[in-house]
């Protein structure tokens, strides 16, 4: 084996090693914001379902989410715009001025006829009744969801 061959082998191997590392980083980069394509597909599917759904919806189903207690009492968001983001951030559907609420605190979304609330990794947690929820939890009319010092409810 000549010096040059060995040098080229070594160089080629280091190149493979770094191509691997850089590819791994590029996969991580492309993974950062999740999917775009399925999202638009879902986005396109959602309105059509939303339009066809209301007539079949039963009479007792909730129509809006209302803040019943806390600094923002009276604020509401229509469930037609679901999923709803709740938090202190400017992109939230219901913005709460409550120091105990995280920027993106929880979200309310529907699954069939059911509505559920999901904690988005908030600092102080989301409570349904007196239980701190750890996974998406179904809520019905009048069930109180506590977020920080604020209480929300689904209303007709």
């Amino acid at each position, binding site marked *: *084996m000549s010096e040059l*061959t*060995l*040098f080229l*082998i*070594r*160089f*080629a*191997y*280091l190149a*493979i*090693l*770094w*191509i*691997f*590392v850089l*590819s*791994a*980083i590029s*996969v*991580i980069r*492309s*993974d950062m*914001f*999740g*999917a775009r394509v*399925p*999202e638009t597909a*879902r*986005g396109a*599917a959602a309105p*059509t*379902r939303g339009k066809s*759904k209301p007539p079949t919806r039963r009479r007792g189903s909730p129509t809006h989410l209302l803040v019943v207690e806390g600094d923002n009492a009276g604020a509401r968001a229509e469930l037609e*715009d679901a*999923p709803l*983001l709740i938090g202190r951030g400017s*992109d*939230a*559907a219901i913005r709460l001025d409550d120091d105990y609420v995280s920027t993106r605190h929880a*979200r309310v*979304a*529907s*699954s*069939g*006829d*059911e509505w*559920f609330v*999901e*904690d988005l*990794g908030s*600092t102080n947690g989301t409570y349904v009744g007196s*239980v701190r*929820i*750890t*996974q*998406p*939890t*179904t809520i019905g009319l009048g069930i109180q969801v506590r977020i920080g010092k604020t209480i929300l409810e689904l209303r007709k």
Partner: protein
Amino acid sequence: MSQNHSLMDFVHRQRRGAELFLLLLALAVGIGAYAAVGLGMEGTIPADIAGYGGWLTALIVVAHVAIRLFAPYADPVLLPLVAALNGLGLAVIHRLDLDDTAQCIDNDTFARQQLIWMTLGVVLFVATLALLRDHRLLQRLTYTTGLTAIVLLLLPMVPFIGNTVNGAKIWISVGPFSFQPGEVAKVLLVIAFAGYLVLHRDALALAGRRVLFIDLPRGRDLGPILGMWAVSMFILVFQRDLGSSLLFFGIFLIMLYVATERPGWLVVGTALFAAGAFAGWQAFGHVQNRVNIWLDPMAYYDQNPGSGQLVEGLFGMGWGGLIGRGFGEGAPCRIPYAESDFIVPAIGEELGLTAVLAVILCYGLIVERALRIALISRDGFGKLMAVGLGSIFALQVFVVVGGVTGLIPLTGLTTPFLSYGGSSLVANWVVIALLLRISDQARRPVPRLSATDAGSDSESTQVVKLK
């Protein structure tokens, strides 16, 4: 609202194709290294490259298929990173086996044994993914795993099965097999800490006295950290294993800090660690040796016990320089235990700083993925477990690479996935399986409506659990 909507509809893709692509590159890293070792050492591509490459490929394909079947949403980067590190480690160990110079008195079958251990590791990896479908089941076993970990840590102290190797009582031997139970214990301890802290974090986060802008924890909450400190001191004193002692206490401290968000715990933990380290330094000759060698490696080069190993490692890395000597052109056999604790200097000598940086970056990415999994995980137990498992790698790599480069005193720990050592390799494969399981749970889209199943049967097939 539209911006809001696009944020809300954030879903993770499965990314199994990307994983496959990275795995092919990882195999190129592993098999390429094997071929380069053959070319450098013997002048030809080794005759058994098809068999070796085929076996490695089969293992990786099995692991990949298991992820596709059992954890389709799992993180796509972890398995390729591990496969590349393991492949590179195997090749470097094989290179040390092939070396027949006078210093290489080692066993010539380390690479073969390591491949067998890797096979066992992949089998356990697949078994973990297949059997453990929800990591939250482990939360029920909080105290069982904690107790098992303590028993495993004590096993090397038991007469007849305990075994002392190089002054450290961390081995057990049953018949022809020897095993380091501490490697399994570290995984069990992470599970136990996560289960304990997720329940008690609210109490542990209560602030006590305030000193210099930092809320110190209350005195009555100090029980767990003192207990863990006692366990680490026990390992340091009776098993003479500095590395594991530091690792266990470090993992606990990191998880405690993450669970409570109180920097006060870091202050308390660092103080306890400093006190323990100082007492160890005062009381034990072997700790004093390590510190003296760290302060002035060259002065102890030809003494026994001395710094020969460390200094040869430093020489090797220095000689390797930026792009290394090339496989077969260096003399890594001058470093005792080059295949286990000192594999990083062996890589530095023959592949240079370029490769060492790539390796450290791979570890960095593994830790980054673990923290990312912790961030997106929806349950507190999963978050804490992911942080704990990630910090195993972070601490281990820091302690080993820091030790061999002279940044901190040298302590014996394995370099995850690279070093020769069955217990460590198998345990680390299981750690990766657990991380992938949490990641699968975290990235799986929340059970919800899709246009097809939102129909009339939605009441009978309710997917969201009421808790």
